[in-house]
């Protein structure tokens, strides 16, 4: 019975006008998005390679003086990601630049020019966008009249005059909608991959295939959630135009209102002090440190590393750095908390759940940012240790460590291959799973709860 119903429903959907138009639109966007991405990928990588080259030149310059190497501020800029065709995880607008030296990791920021500031903010045409905005909408368009439409056509009473269990009927509807939309997804992705392969500009390796298969699994789950929401709307009403309006309202809330109102709630509910306030408090403490510093703490003699007051100066500068670090690290933690809490607010939206799950699968977005932030701290400690070991061997150095100046530490030159350099490591599977856990549970719970509600509603649905 289930098989007959399922095939019948699937045929109905596949021959419908809505499927045909949706299919054409989705395939067009898949093809256009991939082609646009392919066109720019080489330039993006070339630009980044040029940046690394320039950075290496600067490093060579600094390596002539180990102290300068340790104290000069350096920026680590995240490389273009390899999974942008699946989902760019908003990495161009999230912090993607870190400032550090051997003594501290100072700050993070969105690098200038990361996106063109003259363009209106928009999302990339990657697979995740097509899923979350287009196919989610199309799923609702297929599902909104699955029950109410049959009732209007009076076919529902006809069906149930036979021995058709209601559970089987609704499940066949659900599965046929999911199959229809998922088939568009699969065809779109295959087309996209064919364009990628034909261009030869992206290396499709095992990791990419693994991430892609994970993405497909999550997409399937996401389509299922959207389909069941559409079916629920259909069981809540007797007229298909009302269930359509309900579906549209739900979609606007999930896709537009909830994600776009988060910023307002972030500031109102999870407010943090402004950067100006933090700077003021920090400056007060820095002024106190300077005021209480022993006389001569600001004296310097560039020609003599053993000038006794350099030790006072180094101590004072270290105290200043530690105070600043204390204030700003606490502030950054508040920022992380604000971001995470705000995200949790919009967790009710399956679209947000889907986006967060993609970050987990790909190890991108906020997960990538957090990993780099933490890894850079570990790297900075090993960099400092390397510098201290180098300094300890130099008899011409008084070993007075100053985080900002190269006055009284080793001025030896070092070769480039000796210098420990930071290299980004992708998030491990365990880290990704930990990140995804909450969102995955939320999505499964949403699916289960809506399905149960829909089922109960349909059991009581007046089919006459």
């Amino acid at each position, binding site marked *: 019975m289930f098989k007959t119903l399922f095939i019948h429903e699937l045929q109905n959907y596949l021959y419908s006008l809505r499927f045909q138009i949706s299919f054409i639109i989705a395939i067009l966007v898949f093809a256009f*998005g991939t082609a646009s991405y392919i066109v*720019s990928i080489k330039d993006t990588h070339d*630009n980044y390679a040029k940046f690394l080259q320039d950075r290496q030149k600067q490093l060579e310059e600094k390596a002539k003086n180990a102290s300068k190497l340790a104290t000069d501020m350096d920026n680590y800029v995240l490389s273009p990601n390899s999974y942008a065709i699946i989902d760019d995880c908003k990495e161009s607008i999230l912090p993607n630049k870190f400032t550090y030296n051997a003594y501290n990791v100072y700050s993070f920021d969105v690098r200038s020019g990361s996106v063109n500031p003259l363009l209106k903010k*928009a999302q990339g045409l990657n697979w995740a966008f097509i899923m979350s905005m287009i196919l989610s909408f199309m799923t609702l368009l297929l599902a909104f009249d699955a029950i109410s439409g049959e009732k209007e056509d009076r076919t529902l009473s006809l069906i149930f005059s036979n021995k058709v269990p209601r559970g089987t009927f609704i499940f066949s509807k659900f599965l046929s909608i999911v199959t229809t939309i998922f088939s568009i997804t699969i065809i779109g992705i295959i087309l996209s991959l064919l364009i990628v392969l034909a261009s030869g500009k992206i290396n499709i390796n095992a990791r990419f295939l693994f991430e892609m298969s994970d993405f497909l699994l999550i997409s399937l789950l996401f389509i299922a959630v959207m389909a069941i929401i559409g079916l629920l709307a259909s069981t809540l009403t007797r007229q298909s135009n009302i269930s359509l309006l309900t579906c549209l309202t739900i979609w606007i809330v999930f896709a537009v209102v909830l994600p776009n109102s988060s*910023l307002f709630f972030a500031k109102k509910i999870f407010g943090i002090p402004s*950067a100006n306030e933090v700077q003021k408090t920090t400056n007060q403490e820095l002024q106190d440190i300077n005021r209480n510093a022993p006389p001569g703490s600001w004296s310097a003699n560039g020609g003599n590393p053993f000038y006794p007051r350099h030790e006072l100066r180094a101590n004072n500068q270290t105290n200043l750095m530690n105070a600043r670090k204390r204030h700003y690290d606490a502030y950054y933690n508040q920022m992380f908390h604000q*971001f995470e809490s705000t995200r949790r607010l919009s967790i009710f939206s399956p679209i947000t759940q889907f986006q967060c799950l993609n970050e987990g699968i790909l190890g991108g977005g906020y997960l990538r940012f957090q990993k780099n932030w933490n890894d850079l701290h570990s790297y900075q400690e090993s960099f400092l240790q390397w510098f201290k070991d180098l300094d300890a061997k130099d008899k011409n150095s008084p070993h007075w460590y100053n985080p900002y100046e190269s006055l009284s530490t080793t001025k030896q030159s070092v070769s480039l291959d000796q210098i420990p350099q930071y290299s980004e490591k992708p998030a491990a599977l365990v880290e990704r799973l930990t990140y995804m856990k909450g969102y995955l549970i939320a999505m499964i719970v949403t699916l289960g709860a809506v399905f149960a509600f829909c089922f109960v509603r349909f059991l009581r649905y007046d089919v006459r």
Partner: protein
Amino acid sequence: MIGLIARKDFFLNLTSARFILGFLICLFIIPFTLVVSMDRYKGQENVYKVLNDNAEKLLNEARVYSQARPEVVRKPQSLSVFCEGISENLGMSTKVYLGDYPMFLSGQATAKDNPLLNAFFSIDFTSIIAIIMSLLALVFSYDCFTREKENGTIKMILVNKINRSSFFIGKLLGILLTLLPILFFCYLLGILFLVVSPNVALDSNTWLSIGLLFISAVLYVVVFVLLGMFISSMSRQSSTSIIVSLLVWIWFLFLMPNMASYAAQNFVKTDLYENLQFAVSEVNKRHSKQRRDKRLEIQKQLGIDGPNSFISKNDDDGRIEFYGGPKVTFDFHRILTPFEVSYLLDYADKKWALQKSYVDDLMKQEKTQHYLSLLSPSEIFIQLSSSLCHTDANAHSLYMDKLREYRESMIQYFRSNKYFESSLWFTPNKYDLLCDSEEEYKKLSGDWYEAFLKGKEAEKEFSEKYMPKEWLSENNAYLDLSDFPRFAYKPQITGPALNYAISRFAMLLFIALVILMLTMLRFSGYRI
């Protein structure tokens, strides 16, 4: 007869579920969006006040002309409550340097201090109007012919002496009569939010913009109503018509804008900003070398190791301020300043050639996005609104042009008053107050340092006894900068902004007329 059909449709729509649901959506979402926009605007206003006060204070506290580098803070546009445009992408202030052309507004953009919050988009009033009103327009118009046909009423109406165009216009008016009060309510609410806000002064120019905003919104709704009617005239069944309408809606509202932006960013190439920075730093290095060579040449000419002074501040933009020291330091700066200023201006031009090419590439991307977006009526409406609210890229570009003109006027001010040749460029101290020889100064400063190490009291006593009081910066008066040029540019709905708005309005009108013609043509042959 037209009135009768319009009235009938209007009352029918009023009692429909879609009207109630549509009105409820507007009732919740529009005020919420306005609260969010108003909150954002207030945040920007607060930032503006703090930045502007600081900038004024800094400028007014200059004691030498080389320190007179104004910081220009852009006042947030009150109409950004309606349409945010690109204002959130950019900062609010820029310092006007001699050695650099203003490229972008930088600094703090909004009250949004946490860069992680960039991940959350905020949607403005115009975008919400574009989304909801177009949806409502389609929902009310998709079945205007098909429903009558399905119910069999169209036959009954048209067998009477009613011509098809009267029926068509009656239908159109009926839908517009239903939708326009909702639209009017939304804009009225927006105006109320602005009027009751204590920070907003509404001048005639703002009222004109608001009026034009409303008219363009009416035209936008007309376009989508006509589009729905056209789809209805193409379909035999309402179920087909609604599906096509909604797919057209998602195409225009969500796909086209993203496709345009994505294509513009990918097809029009720009360099990495860091690479531009690197090229600029290379020019800066050449500048520093030329500057250093000149300094050494003058030092050699005067027979000194370097300029000594009791207090000194300087930076790479030629800002130099010193107090106390030997007379030769005074001579040194008097000779150096004209060269230094000339190098600064020269290298600013060289850097600007690189920066302008980068800005031009960004503008090319923006233009491409704009032209591709013209394929969507909703994007034309949003472009038109952001142009009227002065929050689009053109307004920013014009503002930056004015800022660069202002930099020129500042240089002209220094030149015409001969401040580059004046000692007031680098010190308020008179020549006679300085030590005759370097040895005399070195002895005096050495003795002062001894006193300083003994404590504050000893240092104070020494300073009062042996040093001219003008050697301390606070004992010198601030400059009178009442005639210093101030940046005073206020965007108006005139010139290019008006032309741009008119062109977008004409496009919407053209689209409306084309769809109107097509629909009427289709409906004249519609099988009832």
